[in-house]
């Protein structure tokens, strides 16, 4: 050690503090907790059954195989149908695309009308919609079944689209309303002075501005609708069962031994779309959550 006391000058000598190490330790441990299930899923899905029977859930596969994935996708059975969950995958898409489009289109229009035009009863409408976002679905299920069947939409593709639209509307409206609330009202007034009507202002002025929130809405709706189980089960009809319902069927259909690897593969396949959406657009996802959750 040098005997001269160092004169403070220039940059402080940097040091790695215990606090810093603690921060990273905490984060890494937490990350492990969050990744654990994903790890288990992936690892198990590529193990042959023989290894799974050994019971070591976390061990690395000795003889990795993609057979479970193929089976899950193409010929896992639900009852006597052994077509895998690819059917559900297609169904989920057929439900997803129109539901996302319709609910967003409607949410955007309503959000726009509520923020800028404030017609009579707008507050009431908004209040009910908001409340609707928080009410347990169970309240609606049975009457909706009856209502949809009265108009002949029960157990059909349009039916499930309507249901997703109904239950997606509060969040979409809120999202767009909050977004439009952040757009200066002056912009709207200027367009009014320029002679723009309801639709002209919406299509020419507001929609081009709405790209960011539309992205957010698409992300939220895609993950939300894809992940839905209850509505798919009750309203979609057998022909249109979405992937989550198929997954549940596959997992609960057992012939003798439970094929954990196939089930895990099916689970990953089911979670794939939302996960991809999420990983590709994580930043927007965070923003979307914030926008949807907090007053704009």
């Amino acid at each position, binding site marked *: 050690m040098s005997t001269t006391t160092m004169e403070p000058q220039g940059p402080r000598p940097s040091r790695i503090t215990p606090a810093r190490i603690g*921060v990273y330790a905490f984060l890494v441990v937490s*990350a492990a907790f969050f990744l654990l299930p994903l790890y288990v899923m992936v690892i198990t899905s590529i193990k042959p059954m023989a290894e799974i029977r050994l019971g070591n859930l976390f061990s690395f596969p000795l003889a990795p195989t993609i057979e479970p994935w193929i089976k899950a996708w193409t010929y896992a059975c639900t009852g006597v149908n052994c077509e895998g969950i690819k059917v559900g995958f297609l169904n989920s898409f057929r439900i997803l695309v129109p539901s996302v489009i319709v609910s967003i289109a409607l949410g955007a229009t309503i959000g*726009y009308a509520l923020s800028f035009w404030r017609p009579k009863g707008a507050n009431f409408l908004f209040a009910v919609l908001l409340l609707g976002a928080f009410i347990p679905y169970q309240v609606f299920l049975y009457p909706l079944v009856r*209502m949809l069947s009265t108009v002949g939409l029960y157990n059909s593709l349009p039916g499930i689209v309507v249901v997703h639209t109904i239950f997606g509307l509060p969040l979409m409206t809120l999202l767009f309303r909050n977004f439009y609330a952040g757009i200066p009202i002056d912009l709207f007034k200027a367009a009014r002075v320029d002679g723009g009507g*309801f639709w002209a202002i919406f299509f020419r002025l507001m929609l081009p501005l709405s790209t960011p929130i539309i992205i957010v809405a698409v992300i939220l709706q895609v993950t939300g609708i894809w992940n839905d*189980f209850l509505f798919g089960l009750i309203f979609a009809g057998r022909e249109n069962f979405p992937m989550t319902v198929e997954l549940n069927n596959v997992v609960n259909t057992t012939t003798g031994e439970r094929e954990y690897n196939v089930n895990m593969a099916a689970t990953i396949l089911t979670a794939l779309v939302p996960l991809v959406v999420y990983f590709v657009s994580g930043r927007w996802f965070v923003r979307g959550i914030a926008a949807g959750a907090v007053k704009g």
Partner: protein
Amino acid sequence: MKPRFFRSIAAQIALLPAWLIVIFAYLGTIAWTIRISFTSTKVFPTYDFVGWKQYERLFATDRWIISGQNLFIFGACFIIGCLIFGFLLAVFIDQKIRAESVFRTIFLYPYAMSFIVTGLVWQWTLNPTLGVQQTVRNWGWQDFTFDWLVRGDRAIYVIAIAGIWQASGLVMAILLAGLRGVDQELWKAAKVDGIPTWRVYLHIIVPMLSPMFVTATVLLATAVVKVYDLVIALTGGGPGISTEVPAKFVIDYLFNRQNVGLATAASTVMFVTVLVVLAPWLYSQYFRGQRGRGA
């Protein structure tokens, strides 16, 4: 006077679908549900009037009481767990760390997954003969026990853990947004005042973030009331009926047990509870002191 209504006639037309949905899908169904809850309906609606009978039976049913208790236990653990864990994550992520976005991504990805998926994965991971317990035993600790999933008195906590796993990232995201909104000068002021960082968080930041905490709590609370998929996939209500929840009660009686009257009474109770808790918050968030923007 002519103007307001006619001027916004296009707006009214645009809102027509919303009105239809609100009137039929929301208000109509709620009214219908409440009405049915006062009848003796089994599978098909009968419009008699039996007073509070369904409600009396409801609160005399063990399973409903247990469902309520479970909801409370689950709700408390889930909300408090998410808030604490989510807050810690947000605080640690806010420490100017490397690879921040990687960590953020990891903490939030479960929120993108379906409860069905979450439930299945945790069911397998925590299954005593298959998952963590067995693994640790295979490592040599033969006495290691973690069998909460199959213990009636503990299973509900497992559901809470799975829920926390899924939703604390959400809390993190909300609080992180709040933390990032904290005036940097406040940190400097605290540093000049010589206040240790953890105390700044505890005494200054947490109180400042209270609106975010409230928002997060409301979101979590509504998830609690709706919780269904998670229970279905994780325990199916078992062992026994130890992890039953109200939402599952309603669905079961609605569709399997063919007692719609009782089911609607249960959902009415849920609805009223949510309304009572939520209405003040909604009002203060969205309608109080609202300044018109004119049109």
